[in-house]
């Protein structure tokens, strides 16, 4: 691909962008949020028509104007934003458009067998007949991967496939990628996780502001160089100071939280100024706990104490009124009002503050607040009146974070706050979390990235199968965390209870 241009109304997404992929190569595409990575790959896969430039396949120029043509040309893509049909089953999703038939009718049994075979090859335990709607994002992501694999393409584009995956799943994915590589498939790999780039890719192409910056071999190039290519400067990667909060007053205490098999007797406390990390494998129940505390889901039993007072929280409104904010893990579904503009999304949780006597909104005040947060979080948007759905994935996430910053809660629960966020922004968010903690806010961070948990947390709570299997001090090792995260019920040793209490 050479000289690719692509403009959206008010946005120049690509300008003379360039990309090259060899057979049997894993080529990482890097860049900050909004750099144009996804757009470039959508041009390649026939979703967008380019404004200028040339695409060559095997040295011959090709015109790819629809996803169908891309498939026929042997190009398949895993989109960054999940593109699943929520009401269909996993197997039905994978083979949409290519259903096996018998006598002209759908052969559902064959369909499920084929899907099961793909899952097996991925070491994935998943019923083919389960509706994707009922799956966690991580599982949905695995379905997307299975779907892309099922095409058996020569070129496979993966746009942030691991954003929702845990380490075990990532390892599995990498095994698959290596296998494909050996078969001569070219893989385009987009990710914001630096360590993965080193682990999996052969070459790295960096983009900035829609333009091509350069291509470097992955093995020889230090991470710092790639990052400075991305952001156009070097990032200071200083360790964060973790002040002692052991004596601060408890801000939030959760006692004996229960709901079915998903949440089983979870108790913990967060102090003011403390960051409590939540680690665990996919489906461990961390999100469920957060949602139950926030009143987004019903709970069966359990008490919630805020600043030493027992509070009744049955709706998110109650929680927000008590000073609790929750940034959900699925921004598209639960975080962003995609039809509203950036300004209103940022103000959404604080509209009451901008409402005058007869219900009239203080538009100027909202604009000021929104612009302040756009600057503070470096949200890449043409203006604060841009529709939120037109932002790149990472920037959408930042908008949701800005919403809770503006609300100014005492207790903040961040569920996968850096999912899909570039390195520069990530370190800014870390700094931000630290500052918030320094201001005395109590913070819970749920993350599937252990380095992130380790870097941020004063203490680390670990969950497994709906139970809180232990709370570790900050600075514990990855092995200690993984031990607790995989402590299934049967294997539970008595001494764990002691740790739990501590």
């Amino acid at each position, binding site marked *: 691909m050479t000289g690719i241009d692509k403009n959206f109304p008010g946005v120049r997404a690509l300008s003379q962008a360039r990309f090259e992929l060899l057979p049997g190569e894993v080529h990482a595409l890097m860049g900050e949020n909004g750099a144009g990575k996804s757009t470039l790959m959508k041009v390649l896969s026939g*979703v967008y028509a380019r404004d200028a430039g040339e695409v060559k396949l095997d040295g011959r120029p090709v015109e790819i104007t*629809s*996803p*169908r043509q*891309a*498939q026929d040309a042997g190009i398949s893509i895993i*989109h960054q934003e999940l*593109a*699943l*049909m*929520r*009401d*269909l089953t996993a197997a*039905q999703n994978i083979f*949409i*458009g290519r*259903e096996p*038939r018998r006598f*002209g*009718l*759908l052969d*559902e049994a064959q369909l499920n067998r084929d899907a099961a075979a793909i899952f097996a090859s991925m070491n994935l335990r998943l019923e083919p*007949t389960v*509706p994707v*709607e*009922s799956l966690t994002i991580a599982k949905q992501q695995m379905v997307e991967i299975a*779907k892309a694999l099922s095409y058996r393409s020569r070129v496979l584009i993966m746009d942030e496939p691991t954003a929702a995956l845990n380490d075990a799943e990532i390892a599995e994915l990498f095994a698959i990628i290596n296998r494909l590589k050996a078969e001569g498939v070219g893989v385009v790999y987009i990710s914001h996780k630096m360590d993965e780039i080193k682990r999996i890719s052969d070459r790295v192409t960096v983009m900035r502001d829609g333009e091509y910056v350069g291509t470097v071999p992955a093995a020889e190039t230090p991470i710092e160089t790639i990052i400075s290519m991305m952001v156009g400067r070097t990032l200071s990667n200083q360790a964060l100071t973790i002040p002692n909060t052991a004596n601060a007053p408890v801000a939030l205490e959760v006692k004996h939280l229960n709901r079915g098999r998903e949440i089983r007797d979870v108790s913990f406390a967060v102090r003011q100024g403390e960051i409590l990390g939540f680690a665990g494998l996919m489906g461990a129940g961390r999100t469920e706990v957060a*949602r139950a505390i926030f009143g*987004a*889901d*019903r709970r069966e039993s359990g008490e919630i104490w805020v600043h030493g007072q027992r509070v009744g929280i049955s709706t998110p409104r109650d929680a927000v009124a008590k000073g609790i904010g929750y940034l959900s893990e699925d921004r598209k579904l639960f975080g962003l009002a995609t039809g509203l503009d950036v300004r209103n999304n940022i103000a959404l949780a604080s509209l009451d503050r901008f409402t005058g006597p007869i219900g009239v909104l203080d538009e100027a005040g909202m604009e000021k607040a929104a612009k302040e947060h756009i600057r503070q979080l470096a949200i890449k948007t043409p203006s604060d009146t841009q529709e939120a759905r037109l932002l790149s994935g990472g920037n959408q996430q930042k908008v949701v974070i800005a919403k809770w910053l503006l609300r100014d809660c005492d207790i903040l629960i961040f569920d996968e706050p850096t999912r899909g966020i570039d390195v520069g922004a990530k370190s800014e968010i870390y700094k931000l979390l630290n500052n918030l903690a320094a201001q005395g806010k109590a913070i819970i961070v749920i993350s599937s990235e252990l380095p992130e948990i380790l870097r941020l947390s004063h203490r680390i709570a670990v969950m497994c199968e709906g139970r809180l299997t232990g709370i570790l001090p900050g600075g514990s090792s990855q092995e200690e965390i993984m031990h607790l995260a995989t402590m299934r019920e049967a294997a539970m040793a008595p001494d764990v209870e002691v740790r739990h209490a501590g």
Partner: protein
Amino acid sequence: MTDTAAPAGKSGIRITGAFHRLLAFSGLLALVVVFSLASPNFMQTQNILAILQATSVNGVLAIAATLVIITGGIDLSVGTLMTFCAVIAGVVLTYWGLPLPLGILGAILAGTTSGLISGTVIAKLKVPPFIATLGMMLILKGLSLVISGTRPIYFNDTPGFSQISLGSVIGTMVPGLPIPNGVLILFAVALLAAFILGKTALGRYTFALGSNEEAVRLSGVNVDRWKIAVYATAGSICGIAGLLIASRLNSAQPALGQGYELEAIAAVVIGGTSLSGGRGTVLGTLIGALIISVLANGLRILSVAQEWQTVVTGTIIILAVYADILRRRKL
């Protein structure tokens, strides 16, 4: 919507789904029980047959609407399209004097063609389904009047015609069970639609489109073609409804049909199909249509004053759907 339980299965084959939907009968059953207790005339064979007969036209229209609604669209033209197809049958059989099968074919083809046009306007010109089918509703209404010369076309020269709906094949085979053919046709159409939805590619794409059209497009499927196919299928089914009503009245009444779309859509929604697309069942729609006719019939049998009939109907429709929501939440 994390707090509402997962919906019933949608392919109409899964076991839990089947059990689930059996329970959906409860609203209908409750009505039947109440009316049976209130009036000895309700549970008479003749009355049951009258209810089924009254359901047949609206049921078939509702099935057509179900297909479209599952794609996330809507079809406001079902009522006037039915009439248009009836008029076409009248033209073919009475004005042109052609044999019965050609009249049947004509009606169904008229429905298919109209569906093709709606579908094309929606898929290719990107006109929202509401507008496209509203336009078609008006166009077809006008054309029915134009073609028929604003008067009913009678089928007196086609002796067998009224048998399509009123005759009873079963009755001649099993005396004492005079189920009219119209009712059989309703069930046949229901089976056919359930088959299409559950077993064919068309059905799969119907659900897929309503679930996430963009994702289907990104998967390389020719979205437009399948969407048009769904509207055309719905149109053909409206053609069958046209034959049913024409046969029942032994005439094509050109002014009839407007307002019927709302009742058809109501049956669909009462039956648990979501107007936002992606889920729905033919069985649910049948139950929805039956609830509407049982209510109307029962209230009449009880000699409830007409103005109160509407009040009660409105209330019970809301309650029936609310009960269904409660039941699903519990499950």
